[in-house]
């Protein structure tokens, strides 16, 4: 047995079995990037957890910090140009500040990632099979090349690629878009990860392929029992996949609850805006979609107070200029202690009822 597998077991041993902590715990995570223009506050004070077998959906616009926070779980940022604070625990192992060699043994083994745009994310110069084998061999150093190839074929078969024993010799550009994303998923699952992070896994795909990929992810999650984080700006994907939902805005969590809570009883104006901007199948096709006015905030100089206030239509429900001066806490709304929202409006349910629902009735 080589020393690297030995060390891998040490990490596993450090996880206390029976401890009641969810598999992934993110606590007060802040990620900042120094740039020529100043410090970019990509993620501020973010906390969430994901349990084994559960799916967390993270939604938000571009630049809301959703990808940055999940890449931090794998330590994928260039640490020389990133300031990270807070805590990320994966199966009890603290990831923030973990040294590179230990991080490496975590990446792709315990935590795997599926990226958006599989064409760019797969290497154009290597055969798909060899990229899969490589991922397997990286964490099974004693395995033979033949084992790794068999594993690659098995995984491609598992994600529904026909004739996997031949397709392993193809390059990624010879695959269709959906097949590439399947191959990407196969590569992520090759080491049976306990946590799978899917960063916009279906964004570049057409709707039918998107549905197939989401089904596949759900099947695989059932079989592997892994914890899944799905990052998307598509609330349809959230509705289909997520158990819990985290809504992010300007690098912060603005609403956090179960999928049902967030989608049926959203409690934060930004979430309202997101839901309003989704076209409905049975709505009047001539009716204009309702976008959220304005643009996402600059992370170089975030707005004062609530980051959403420059775009918020509901500021008159808040006394004074609280929205502009004070950052609302992420706290449970009245009468629902099991969820969190970041908004100064005290009784959001009432505002939702009076200002939003009647217009649809």
């Amino acid at each position, binding site marked *: 047995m080589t020393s690297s597998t030995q060390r891998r077991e040490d990490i596993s041993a450090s996880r206390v079995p029976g401890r009641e902590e969810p598999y992934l715990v993110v606590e007060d995570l802040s990620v900042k990037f120094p740039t020529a223009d100043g410090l970019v506050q990509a993620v501020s004070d973010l906390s969430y957890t994901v349990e084994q077998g559960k799916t967390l959906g993270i939604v938000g616009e571009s630049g809301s910090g959703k990808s940055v926070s999940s890449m931090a779980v794998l330590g994928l940022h260039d640490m020389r140009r990133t300031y990270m604070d807070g805590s990320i625990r994966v199966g009890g192992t603290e990831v923030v500040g973990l040294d590179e060699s230990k991080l490496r*043994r975590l990446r792709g083994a315990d935590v795997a990632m599926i990226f958006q745009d599989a064409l760019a994310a797969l*290497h154009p110069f290597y055969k798909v099979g060899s990229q899969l084998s490589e991922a397997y061999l990286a964490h099974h150093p004693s395995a033979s090349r033949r084992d790794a190839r068999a594993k690659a074929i098995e995984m491609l078969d598992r994600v529904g690629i026909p004739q996997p024993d031949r397709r392993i010799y193809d*390059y990624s*550009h010879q695959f269709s878009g959906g097949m590439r994303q399947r191959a990407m998923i196969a590569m992520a699952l090759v080491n049976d990860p306990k946590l799978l992070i899917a960063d916009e896994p279906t964004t570049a795909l057409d709707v039918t392929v998107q549905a197939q990929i989401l089904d596949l992810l759900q099947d695989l999650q059932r079989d592997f029992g892994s914890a899944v984080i799905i990052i998307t700006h598509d609330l349809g994907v959230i509705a289909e996949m997520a158990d819990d939902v985290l809504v992010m805005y300007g690098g912060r969590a603005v609403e956090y609850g179960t999928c049902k809570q967030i989608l049926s009883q959203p409690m934060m104006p930004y979430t309202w805006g997101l839901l309003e901007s989704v076209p409905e199948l049975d709505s009047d096709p001539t009716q204009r979609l309702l976008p959220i006015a304005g643009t996402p905030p600059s992370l170089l100089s975030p707005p004062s107070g609530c980051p959403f206030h420059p775009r918020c239509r509901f500021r008159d429900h808040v006394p004074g200029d609280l929205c502009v001066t004070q950052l609302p806490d992420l706290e449970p709304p009245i009468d629902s202690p099991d969820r969190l929202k970041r908004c100064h409006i005290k009784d959001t349910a009432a505002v939702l009822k009076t200002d939003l629902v009647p217009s649809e009735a």
Partner: protein
Amino acid sequence: MLGYIIRRLISAVLVVIMTSMLVFALFFYGPSNPGQALCSGVRCTAERVEQINVALGFNDPVVDQYGTWAKGVFAGRTVDFGGAPIDCPAPCFGVSYQDRIPVTETLSERFPATLSLAIGAAFIFFPLGLLLGVLAARKRGTSIDRGLVGSSLILSSIPYYLVGLMAYLYLVIFWGVAPQPDYNPITENPWKWWTGLLLPWVVLGIWNSTAYARFSRGSMLESLGEDYVRTARAKGLTERKIVVKHALRAAIVPVLTIFGLDFAGLLAGTVFTEYIFGINGIGRTALLAINNQDFPIIAATVLIAAAFVVLANLIVDILYSVVDPRVRLT
């Protein structure tokens, strides 16, 4: 693939033919007077010049002269300078006006020196430049990066002939730490071949490596930012594998293109290097031929350069299809 190569070779031949016509036109329609250049010394009279012009056909229309020359390339010919006719077997690119030796003979005799120089220098500047470039890219923004980029800019902004002369002056003449540059065929004395070329190799290699360092740094930075490199990192590969197998493999492709053309340029004659270090290769021969209006040599060296560049382009394109599976040659 084979069809592609054949088509490219045909177009390569066409390019070389066109180049030869162009060289002829430039030389003979330009302000040249080969008869005068050939007839040097005090006894040179107008009649003597005219005699030479008639004997060597310089008064004939340029098209005819080209025809004679081109025929010689394939069939060989004899050239009469007014003494004993000189036999010039095919492929005959003419006979040097200066030393009256067939050009083919002279250049094939001098080519090994240039080839030795080019290969030796390439063995220094390609790996060295790539290594420094990768290192700078990996350490982007650090003092190592800035030091490498800065020193490479400074070195490459000093004209090459100055660097070469200074190196020769200090290392060989003043300090005597480097062996006297000289070309000895490797077949005769490998040790002397090596020591004689050492300084030119190092000077040419290091000076050229600066451009490669900057170029491969840029290419490497680009590929390090690619999604597939992030994927490689997310797979848990070692840093060495990420950099070498995933990033460098893609970064090396554009560097290879430049290398192909540069190397062809070196084979066509490293003019400064050969001149400064007194190595009798193609470059030095070409330079002297220009001074002497020795047209056959000029034409042949230009053609060699054209042929190498076209060939290098072809080889680079074929290499592309080997390195990048997305490239299909059709």
